[in-house]
């Protein structure tokens, strides 16, 4: 029983990271139908920006703990958001209307450039994050729960909630949804599609950047390839949830976290990813549109 709650808690915790990154994937996909492979690397860049700010400020900041971290996270979000917009402007916008696979290639290219750009600037050595969120655990229903975990999940939850509100309630949010439904129709509403797409990249990248700083502070290690695997996972999570769907991405992240956690319990660590992908494949064959994806009716 204890083990079971632990499995679930672990799954949900790592799932909330997946969710935060999956959001960016899903938003971008929803709007321009692009699998933005560079997205995981934005997460990595976020962690490095956080690292750079904290180390350049020296020791003084570290004693401030959580508050300092949140401020740094916000600055990093601002910067990763901007980087996301720049990547979009340079690598994706010129290809609007080009074959979709062409954009996929530039995405992979951008991913390489970000990874090895950071490696060139910051050296390929892994870095220890200057601020660490440490805390003792308490047992909740048999699961070890730490304060940092709760804080990070709260931050993730707040960010996702804010995004959900933004998408649902503001006119830009409405425009994002309308573009994902019908780009031409949105143009006729006077929506400046380029601006809205930029903003989408900004928000998605900012969230990934936030996740990067959080991961740095929680796990304590950052390196230039840290975004690759989590990027793939987040992409998977976005698909599970129903790609293009914001709430689906959140749900998909949590579900993937759980599936992995349960899988490693059932089949052992070495088979965990195989298990997760097998569940994904089975699931998609049974429900091809993901958990919250819209059913697409075949039209002639």
């Amino acid at each position, binding site marked *: 029983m204890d083990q079971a709650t632990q499995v679930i808690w672990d799954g949900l915790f790592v799932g909330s990271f997946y969710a935060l990154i999956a959001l960016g994937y899903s938003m971008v996909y929803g709007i321009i139908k692009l699998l933005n492979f560079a997205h995981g690397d934005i997460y990595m860049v976020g962690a490095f920006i956080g690292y750079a700010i904290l180390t350049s400020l020296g020791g003084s900041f570290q004693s401030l703990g959580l508050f300092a971290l949140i401020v740094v996270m916000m600055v990093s979000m601002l910067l990763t958001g901007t980087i996301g917009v720049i990547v979009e402007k340079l690598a994706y916008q010129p290809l609007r209307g080009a074959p979709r696979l062409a954009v996929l290639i530039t995405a992979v290219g951008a991913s390489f450039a970000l990874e090895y750009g950071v490696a060139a600037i910051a050296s390929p050595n892994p870095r220890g994050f200057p601020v660490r969120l440490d805390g003792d655990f308490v047992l909740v229903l048999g699961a070890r729960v730490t304060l940092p975990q709760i804080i990070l999940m709260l931050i993730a939850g707040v960010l996702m909630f804010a995004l959900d509100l933004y998408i649902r309630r503001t006119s830009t949010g409405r425009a994002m949804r309308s573009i994902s439904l*019908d780009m031409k129709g949105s143009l006729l509403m006077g929506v400046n599609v380029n601006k809205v797409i930029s903003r989408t990249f900004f928000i998605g990248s900012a969230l990934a950047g936030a996740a990067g700083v959080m991961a740095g502070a929680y796990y304590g290690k950052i390196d230039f390839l840290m975004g690759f695997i989590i990027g793939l996972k987040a992409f998977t999570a976005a698909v599970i949830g129903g790609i293009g769907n914001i709430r689906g991405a959140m749900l998909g992240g949590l579900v993937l976290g759980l599936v992995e956690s349960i899988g490693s319990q059932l089949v052992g660590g070495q088979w965990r990813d195989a298990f997760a992908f097998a569940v994904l494949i089975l699931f998609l064959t049974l429900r091809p549109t993901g958990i919250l994806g819209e059913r697409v009716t075949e039209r002639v």
Partner: protein
Amino acid sequence: MAMLEFDNVEVFYGKVQALRGLSLKVEEGEIVALLGNNGAGKTTTLSTASALMNPQSGTVTFNGADISKGKPWDVVAAGLIHVPEGRRIFSTLSVHENLLLGGYLVKDRGLIQKRLKHVYELLPLLDERKAQQGGTLSGGEQQMLAIGRALIAGPKMLMLDEPSMGLAPLIVAQVMRVISDIRDEGTTVLLVEQNARAALKVTDRAYVIEEGATTLEGNAKDMIADPRIIDAYLGA
């Protein structure tokens, strides 16, 4: 000065030429019909006016400003609103949200509220379905929503592309009535129709487009009687 003017406009889709030196004028306060067959270039004309497409040559002016190299959002901001063919309702957004999107460029919230109220009065069925998803409306309701959405933008001129398409005759009549009402409120209207007779009944003037150029122009009443119309357009 004409409100909307096309001067010798040429538009291409890739290698295929859609408009071949098209010229037309719509004066302020007028309601003008654009008639022609499938593929004659009517929709392209509207798309060019709303800057979805930019012409290869020739000029398009709206209220004296050249919009032939403009962006769609600039055209909307200038008050030229295009209600597209097939309505293009955002299917998973609610009726209310669809209307709000119409006012995307209107920064004044009070003004949006005022216009919303007006649209809900003009088209009470939308008020009833406020919270419903746009995609669940019937064809006629969707058309009303599309028109309502355009009104929230505060159009100086409205371009409607085949508003009667796929609608039962009774609904067509309703739509045409709404269009007349809108004109009576002072909005200029350019109406694209395949259904020539229905269109000519509510319009002042009409153009006939064939193969990307206007071939006939005249007063609506004269045109109904003009045998050339039957020839050119109805293909007797």
